[in-house]
């Protein structure tokens, strides 16, 4: 039994964790759920003895070997990887790009003196096969860049479980993965727990993932565990208001009024964009890769159109072509009948009528500019800058629920949700008719996401906007769109009214996407307000 007892943590005097008590049962999955900044990851790092400098810890973290918090760095080195393994969110950065996958898995064994180099490679081979990378298909000599994101995460898991640890900590292990890959990785983790009797601490923001995986769930808010218990009991009861709020937000349905008109606003016809692929060998021929392969779509005035697809399906390339940032090699994009040509010669008035909100609220703004200048940037598209620019910016900010005083502050003073509101204000400032939402809510916590979806719905009703809603998150698209397109390998494989596509998917790919999406069992949905 692994037990956290009264764990408290301060970083430079700021409280991070407060009196965390958690039992992690052997051979079971324990879920730790919370929003960003709630202290989930810090809890994991404390158990690994990997806290950043400037931390003061109190309390205990009992493993079989005793209190982890009382151990020296030297003792922790022996413990890490050996008795406690960890996998992270981003499998790309968790692997060394210049070492083969076999060597990386074997390294863990050699470091802990468990095996000679030759034996270690044999164990690595067996471990990689166990996580679904058999040597026939994935030789040990592969490098991380030759694998997909899901395969890399499998390598990380093989490294973490190479020495049969007592405890495996998985910190958002599937957040960076596509939904079908996520389902496979979760299956793998569950299988490992069942077969090898280790404990898994699954840290995630996604209630649905926990519902399908964990035997025991703890909900964390601002450094405290506010509620914990057996998964089903906890979901049925939801005694703590925070749990109920998280739950409500994760299945939130923004109040939308259908206002789509039958007149087309954006039309894409037979769009084709291909890239040259790298040459194989010095004299090899370079191939071509069709990122967008004959896509035709239409967004009507005032309509919300969803575009769903996994990473690499060509969504981003298509988005850039629609926005006139990159040229197409074939086909046409028209806004209100006028053709969009990529490049700097695009008519500014055409550009004005189409704006965009990006995914990452932290990368969407120049850190050296104040909010007023950031929001006013699209005024560059106007022939003359409006005299009352400042009041226009204030009005746009008011539209998205940000006070006017924010204009004189820098972007780093705002939270992720506030930044996304500011990004929407920037998109609204030129009174566009179409806003492209490129994964605009994917990086947000569930409660913030629900607020932003509500905001988008009310802005749509108020300004008669059309949205092109691009996302890999099916639940978001389902809640917020009138029609949906499913994209795979550069082609649209299915389209139709959102509810029809989701309830009666036609294409096998759509069906597999919907089946892979984790969901909370319908009969668990009790809670105080149901």
């Amino acid at each position: 039994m692994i037990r956290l007892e009264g764990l408290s943590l301060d970083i430079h005097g700021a409280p991070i964790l407060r009196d965390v008590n958690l039992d992690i049962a052997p051979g079971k999955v324990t879920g730790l759920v919370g929003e960003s900044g709630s202290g989930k990851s810090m809890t994991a790092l404390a158990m690994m003895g990997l806290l950043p400098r400037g931390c003061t810890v109190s309390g205990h973290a009992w493993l079989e070997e005793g209190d982890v918090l009382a151990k020296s760095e030297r003792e922790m080195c022996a413990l890490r990887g050996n008795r406690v393994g960890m996998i992270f969110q981003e499998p790309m950065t968790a692997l060394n790009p210049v070492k083969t996958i076999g060597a990386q898995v074997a390294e863990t064994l050699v470091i802990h003196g468990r095996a000679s180099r030759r034996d270690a490679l044999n164990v690595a081979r067996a471990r990689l096969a166990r996580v679904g990378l058999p040597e026939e298909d994935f030789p040990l000599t592969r490098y991380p860049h030759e694998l997909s994101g899901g395969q890399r995460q499998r390598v990380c898991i093989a490294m973490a479980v190479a020495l049969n640890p007592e405890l495996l900590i998985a910190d958002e292990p599937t957040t960076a993965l596509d939904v079908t890959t996520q389902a496979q990785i979760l299956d793998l983790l569950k299988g490992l727990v069942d077969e090898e009797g280790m404990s898994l601490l699954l840290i995630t923001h996604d209630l649905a993932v926990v519902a399908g995986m964990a035997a025991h769930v703890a909900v964390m808010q601002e450094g405290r565990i506010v509620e914990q218990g057996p998964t089903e009991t906890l979901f049925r009861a939801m005694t703590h208001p925070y749990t109920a709020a998280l739950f409500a937000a994760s299945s939130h349905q923004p109040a939308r009024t259908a206002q789509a008109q039958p007149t087309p606003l954006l039309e894409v016809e037979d769009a084709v964009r291909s890239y040259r692929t790298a040459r194989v060998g010095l004299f090899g021929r370079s191939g071509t890769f069709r990122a967008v392969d004959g896509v035709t779509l239409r967004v009507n005035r005032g309509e919300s159109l969803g575009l769903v697809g996994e990473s690499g399906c060509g969504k981003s390339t298509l988005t850039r072509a629609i926005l006139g940032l990159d040229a197409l090699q074939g086909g046409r994009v028209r806004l209100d009948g006028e053709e969009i040509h990529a490049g700097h010669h695009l008519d500014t008035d055409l550009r004005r009528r189409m704006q965009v909100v990006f995914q990452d609220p932290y990368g969407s703004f120049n850190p050296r500019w104040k909010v007023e200048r950031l929001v006013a940037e699209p005024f560059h598209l106007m022939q003359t800058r409006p005299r009352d620019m400042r009041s226009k910016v204030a009005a746009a900010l008011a539209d998205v629920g940000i006070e006017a005083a924010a204009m004189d502050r820098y972007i780093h003073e705002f939270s992720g949700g506030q930044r996304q509101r500011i990004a929407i204000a920037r998109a609204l400032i030129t009174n566009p008719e179409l806003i492209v939402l490129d994964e605009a809510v994917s990086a947000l916590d569930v409660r913030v996401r629900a607020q932003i979806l509500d905001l988008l719905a009310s802005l749509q009703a108020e300004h008669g906007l059309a949205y092109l809603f691009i996302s890999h998150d099916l639940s978001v698209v389902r809640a917020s769109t009138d029609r949906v397109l499913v994209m795979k390998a550069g082609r649209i494989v299915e389209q139709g009214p959102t509810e029809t596509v989701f309830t009666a998917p036609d294409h096998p790919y759509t069906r597999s996407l919907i089946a892979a999406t984790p969901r909370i069992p319908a009969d668990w949905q009790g809670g105080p307000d149901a």
Partner: protein
Amino acid sequence: MLKGGVQLWLGATLTLVFLAAALLSFVWVPHDVEALSIADKLRPASATYLLGTDHFGRDILSMLMVGARTSIAVALVAVGIGMALGVPLGLLAAANRGSLTDEVVMRGNDLIFAFPSLVIAILITAVFGPSALNAILAIGIFNIPVFARVTRGGALSLWTLDWILAARVAGKGRVRISAEHILPNILNLLIVQGTIQFSLGILAEAALSYVGLGAQPPTPSWGRMLADAQTMIYTNPALAILPGLAIVIMVLGLNLMGDGLRDFFDPRVRRARG
């Protein structure tokens, strides 16, 4: 802990001392550096001559002060030339990544890099005659590719960010984006590189003056003070040691300041220091 660490402040202090001495030399020096007084030659350090005199009876402290002026002026203008031409070239190359322009700029860079800089500097001064101005030009030309490369590297990583895309959606062209968004965000890189090139410029000027191709007499220069002292190195070692020390300390100060500025501007380092 000081922001930027001890090295930044030590380096900045050393640099400022030399800068102050150089500026002071415009209005006041202890003794006139052009007035020869053979009677006072090779005096040891005293109250009148704080660091002693050389073989022409000139005050060494005064010569070091005026020499600092020469070194700093040459290095500063050389860095200025490098920045003024290199930064726009780098921005241009980054804004047109993968295009013919990019290729031409970067291969041109490689070409200049491939020349041994000091030998070419000697060639330039040999052809156009030795003078401080020609030394400046010779050193400056070799600063261009350095700044072009640093600028391009920094700019390329910015061009992929969402906020640049947002600016493009706002209809801004490459020139405008480069000036408004890219340049202010790579200034820290340029300042750090600037201090490093500055110290290299001082070394290069000293080297050129040492072989007689830099500032011409009677303008004092650290490099020529070293050259003049080499015949007397056994009898009057101070004549060689003092200008040598001036070069070493100035360059050390600039390098410390460059490293310190790098830490100062690096948000990761700043966070770790709290």
